[in-house]
């Protein structure tokens, strides 16, 4: 444990009288001043119980800060038998109790022109590695990249990784027909903030025509054109401008990011026949669909995350002709040209809740921590 003990923590333990060599009083006084300051800091630290408080029992105590351990085990005791004159008194006698005999070794003179102190410095250990004047000048002229990031070593890097994102989608803005369905997105992150990918959602067989439509038609004799979806697919770009972390219950930390996504693709839809279901049998037709959305991704570990996304798929919907069919002939009823009436720009806003798996599972950081 000694090697982990911070500097200045050696004046603890047993007393050992060490004859004080003459001519080193200034060095001793300097150390005394430091020790006094450290001891004062320790007293302040001890007076504030929360500073050393440990939340959970049984945990290792937090080691004191560097230098503050001088009095942690009983305090330092220093005796000086020479009057303090402010100047080193040559030949003055006195004792200093230290627990480490090494502390009494003479301080070597620093090598001239070098930055090493001589107390285990690089120049003593390996003279060949000792910086020379020419090296320092060369270092001064070296161009450095002074860029520093506000937050370094992001918990989960995305750059050059694939993301697989299975999700479940449900409608947020269609009170007439619900469009739930499973989906899958696959993205490749070109950089840590930009990805290109595809996603697809399958709605077929899961569209829900609510009771509200029937009750509204029955009460007002007004037909509202309804549509159902078969599938949707899109090519997307994702940009991740926001990330952060949360502390949950002040006990654990999880990381998250928020992103914007947008793209273009297709959605296959058809009207649900409301007016003449006996004759009207609409077929699925794909339409060009643009999409834009926002997403939140909560990392459960470095490659596994939960996602929540809200995306608006915007496309031109073909609506059923809800005009009265009274008086039409059978040929007119079966003429598909009479089944459609208008096109309307439609927003299908859906939430997508899912999981993200990043591949490969691990990576190497470019910069050290």
């Amino acid at each position, binding site marked *: 444990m000694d090697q982990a003990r911070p500097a200045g923590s050696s004046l603890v333990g047993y007393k050992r009288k060490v004859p004080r060599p003459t001519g080193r009083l200034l060095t001793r006084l300097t150390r005394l001043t430091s020790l006094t300051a450290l001891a004062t800091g320790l007293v302040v630290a001890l007076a504030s119980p929360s500073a050393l408080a*440990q*939340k959970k029992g049984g*945990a290792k105590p937090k080691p004191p800060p560097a230098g503050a351990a001088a009095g942690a085990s009983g305090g330092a005791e220093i005796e000086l038998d020479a009057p303090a004159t402010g100047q080193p008194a040559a030949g003055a006698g006195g004792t200093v109790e230290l627990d480490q005999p090494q502390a009494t070794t003479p301080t070597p003179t620093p090598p001239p022109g070098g930055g090493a102190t001589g107390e285990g410095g690089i120049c003593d250990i390996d003279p060949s590695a000792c910086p020379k004047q020419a090296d320092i000048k060369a270092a001064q002229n070296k161009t450095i990249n002074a860029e520093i990031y506000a937050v370094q070593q992001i918990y989960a890097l995305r750059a050059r990784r694939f993301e697989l994102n299975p999700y479940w989608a449900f409608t947020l803005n269609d009170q007439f027909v619900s469009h739930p369905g499973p989906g899958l997105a696959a993205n490749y992150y070109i950089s840590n903030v930009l990805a290109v990918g595809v996603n697809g959602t399958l709605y077929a067989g899961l569209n829900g025509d609510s009771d509200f439509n029937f009750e509204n038609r029955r009460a007002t004799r007004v037909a509202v054109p309804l549509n159902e979806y078969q599938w949707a697919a899109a090519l997307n770009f994702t940009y991740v401008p926001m990330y952060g972390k949360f502390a949950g219950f002040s006990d654990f930390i999880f990381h998250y990011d*928020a992103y914007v996504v947008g793209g273009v693709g297709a959605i296959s839809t058809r009207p649900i026949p409301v007016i003449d279901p006996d004759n009207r049998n609409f077929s699925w037709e794909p339409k060009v669909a643009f999409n834009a959305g926002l997403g939140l991704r909560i990392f459960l570990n*470095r490659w596994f995350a939960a996602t929540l996304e809200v995306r608006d798929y915007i496309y031109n919907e073909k609506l059923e002709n809800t005009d009265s069919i009274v008086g039409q002939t059978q040929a007119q009823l079966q003429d598909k040209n009479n089944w459609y009436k208008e096109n309307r720009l439609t927003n299908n806003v859906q939430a997508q809740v899912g999981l993200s798996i990043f591949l490969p599972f691990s990576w190497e950081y470019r910069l050290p921590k």
Partner: protein
Amino acid sequence: MRRFVTLLVSAALAAGALLAAETDANAQEIQLTGPLAGAPAARKLRLYREGRFELAPTTSFTLLDEYRRTIFVGGRLQYHIKDWLGVGVWGAYGVVSSTTDLTDQIDAVAIRNNRTAANVAPKNFGDQTAKLTYVAAPQATFVPFRGKFAIFQKIFVDTDAYLHGGVAFVGVQERGNCGGSGQPLCTDPSSFALASRTAIAPTFGLGLNFYVSELLSIGLEYRALPFSWNRAGFDSRGAGNNGKFPNVPPKIDDQDQTFKFNQMITIALGISLPTHAKVSD
């Protein structure tokens, strides 16, 4: 059955093994055996909520409305006993109540004859659709998550995520009862007038608070208010074997109130007092 259970357990073990095989996440756990062992997840945390009142003007927008949408303006007053627990009340008044496109379409194209006389007002269909007039909701707020987010690695904002729940007293104006004894006929134009009542409903949701300073915060909140009401003023229930058919002759009463999972989004500007927040150890 046994095979299914075996399959399920095997799948769970495989998933667990897959997750356990991950090695990089352990890099974080090294600290748990070091000098930070036992330390809280965050030190010197600004306690934006503990021991403080929050007064927040709010604006709320209803979602997924069938016949009429409402914009509420109100306020939230809360006291936070702890940083993670607060009690208070949210109240709002519906200052804007506009009809949806469906309501306008019905008003424009619905035929007024004896088949629709009990359900569609002779002049303006929008006038018979129900309105939400006010909401008062005593509630508790639970704040399990505290953190921050960075935007473009430039802007850092302290943030918390919270859940809220309580009881809501909702002012509802909906078509009055008709067709019963002592009541007007449902085909009578006067029967389309709205009557007021107070509905009591659970309310819950979640939100995010972004602290732009110790004094001010910006909030975004989702709220659900599920309860039954007759939003269109139709006679749609009460007869038939399962009660899902209109009465003959028409009769409107509380059976015509159908369940709706009412939802809204709220934007708030929070003002916290005292003006300075405590800081945790």
